[in-house]
């Protein structure tokens, strides 16, 4: 595909070009990933922006540019983790604000209409899982990554991915049972 990306006259043309190209190819997908985890498009966009700024800043230290997407995915996961923790801290600090401004499963009315009750409940339960379990589930079941790919993105071993998935499913099973 022909691109017409503007490049600035910075002092790091290789990083400029590589990061801009990676953003062009993957920003939308990564924002969607953040959106699925966070349920908030604006927050997802922030996380992805921060991830690419980090990637740009550390480009020269990246040992293998072919791993840039894996790095970006990892950064997005880290950013989502931070956003969820910030949100939880804020909710604990200010219960009134939490009740008034409850984080919706998805942030638009259209999304709320289109996502069934069942799916919203599952996603809410997934969001409450431990970080590692939530991330493993999302990478496997949303992105469709293999266990090995998931392990690379998360920076853990395939065995740990499998056990995180197993625990996540068990936790969700108990949650669903309690709710029914």
């Amino acid at each position: 595909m022909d691109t017409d990306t503007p490049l600035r006259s910075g002092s790091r043309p290789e990083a400029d070009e590589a990061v801009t190209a990676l953003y062009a190819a993957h920003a939308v997908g990564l924002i969607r990933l953040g959106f699925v985890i966070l349920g908030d498009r604006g927050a997802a966009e922030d996380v992805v922006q921060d991830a690419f700024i980090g990637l740009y800043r550390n480009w020269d230290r990246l040992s293998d540019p072919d791993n840039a997407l894996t790095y970006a995915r990892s950064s997005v996961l880290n950013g989502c983790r931070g956003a969820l923790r910030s949100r939880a801290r804020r909710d604990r600090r200010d219960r009134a604000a939490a009740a008034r401004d409850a984080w919706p499963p998805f942030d638009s009315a259209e999304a709320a209409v289109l996502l069934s009750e069942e799916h919203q409940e599952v996603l809410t339960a997934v969001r409450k899982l431990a970080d590692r379990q939530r991330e493993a589930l999302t990478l496997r079941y949303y992105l469709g990554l293999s266990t090995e790919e998931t392990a690379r993105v998360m920076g853990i071993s395939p065995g740990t991915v499998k056990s995180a998935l197993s625990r996540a499913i068990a936790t969700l099973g108990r949650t669903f049972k309690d709710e029914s």
Partner: protein
Amino acid sequence: MNPVEDRVRAAMSAAGDQAAREIRTAPPLRLQSPSVAGDRRGHSPRRWMRWGAPLTAAAAVAVVAVSLVVVRGVQNDSTVSAKPAASTGAAAAGAPVPDSSCAPTTVASASGGPASALTSAATEVASGTTGGQAWTLWSKKGETGARGIEDGGLVVGGRAYGLCPGYPNPAELELADVGGGHGLAFGVVGYPGLAKVWLYKSTVGTFETGERLPSPQVQVVDGVSFFIGALPQSACDYRSLELNSTSPGASDEHNLGFGACTSGRLVPITASQGIWQLQPGHFVSNFPGGSLSSGRGVPTANVPGADSSCSPPTKASASGGPASALTSAATEVASGTTGGQAWTLWSKKGETGARGIEDGGLVVDSRAYGLCPGYPNPAELELADIGGRALVYGVVGYPGLAKVWLYKSTVGTFETGEQLPSPQVQVVDGVSFFIGALPQSACDYQSLELNSTSPGVSDEHNLGFGACTSGRPVPITASQGIWQLPPGHFVSNFPDSRPSVGAASIPAADSSCSPTTVASASGGPASALTSAATEVASGTTSGQAWTLWSKKGETGARGIEDGGLVVGGRAYGLCPGFPNPAELELADVAGGHGLAFGVVGYPGAAKVRLYQSTTGTFDTGQALPSPQVQVVDGVSFFIGALPQSACDYRSLELNATSPGVTDQHNLGFGACTAGRLVPITASQGAW
């Protein structure tokens, strides 16, 4: 897989679909020099759109469903627009943007007045010149999207014209006689993104496409599409127009009838019927059938009142609670007994008609149940498990007493299976409320078909239901409707019987076919590709040997699209952009003959046809030689030499039929370079 995994996978899939519908673009990437970036730490801006002056580094990405197009950066922080035509495809047809309430309804006789009343309460959002006349478009202050525009209006020659034909439909049109001997047609397509819009002369009460009229200009304004065009004849000469539009993910048809015209005013709309949320490109010009041919006095559909806004929608899990929260804010408007259970119906205080009822609710056994399944449709239905049996209730928003029929059905069709007992119907506050008990448990109905006929108009609404919970409404998982049909003209088999098809093997949700094929970088040495991929097929086309490679560790269409084709020791990517089910690349590799190749991601052997075409259409012009097709790793790979040089094709149409499913993909091509892929400049698909 255990049931929990099934649920997680289904929820993730639904969330992914939703993300794909909602997120089609990325904001500009604003990289900073390292020193500046370092300074930013600690006060990170939290919304990109709030960023101030443009920074030196700015890239803007616009992905419109299929085509990923990187466009020149943001100047003065303005939004970017994609160069190619709008694309459709990967996203399923979504519900229309539920933000148009369209008030006050445009009154033809009051239109064409001084612009000041409009402009003082609205903001100019677009301007242009059409048919030699300058115009400005205004959006009501405090509102956005289609709603703002429809509550605003158009100013031509210092006169204001409304833009709200009546009930808030996804695709609206007004016809005005503004002088100069040419009718002015303008309107809004409320789905997100850039729509393609076609206008035709038509016949009232049909969806016939007669003489095609010049296509209007279309531009995205506040996220939706505004169109405007001058017609060849006076506004007085058009008795009916057909508006067909395709937005990313959905097509619509709207047939309108017009009354007597008055100079300098809107032409009054006397009839209106629409089919919404069609699959992209699936227009049904002869729908609803021969019985509605012109000249037979077909009754025209009334334009219903726009009084249902239905916000917020009913949340199944929150429904079934104590009635007091509802009854304290609403007024009892009806009562009765159904299936042995007494009920009362409540309308929200300060509201009337369908809107009041849908913002109110039903009380059974001191429990409140919502009555607003989602987008405000003219005929709504809820299914609830109350007292151990299924109770079905809803509102038909057209004026007068409706007849209501209920059927078991199949999700995603308009099939009428076993007819269910007809519910009681009564007029409440001018519209029809219905309620009935069903023979089986609410858990036993996977889909219901609601057919209703009000005075002058019929509707069909097909709904799918999820897992039921005792004492609650059953969550609605699918909904599609045909509104404003001529009375009694139900079309149970519309759009057609849909065979079950294998799922397309397309790349993962976040894959933009990496590395995205870049024409300028294609045609390089094959080693970079072959070292990371596995050969999966080979052959000879027009005397040139080729091999096909799938990325190691991947399978199916994903592997092939992340791999590529090798011809003459050179590697060519195979990924036009967003991962679609049927992809095509055009390369100039063979001395005077273009090479077209691609993947159809559905399982099984596909039949593939190629045509010369016109960018931005699905026209099938001259048929080109059919390419070779072979099944590779479960999906279809095709490759063929074209009669002319790759440089001679500005647009190709790829039609592919896999077992049970047909796809169309129209592509536009830019300037060709010897030995490279021809850059794709436009892409749209109907999957």
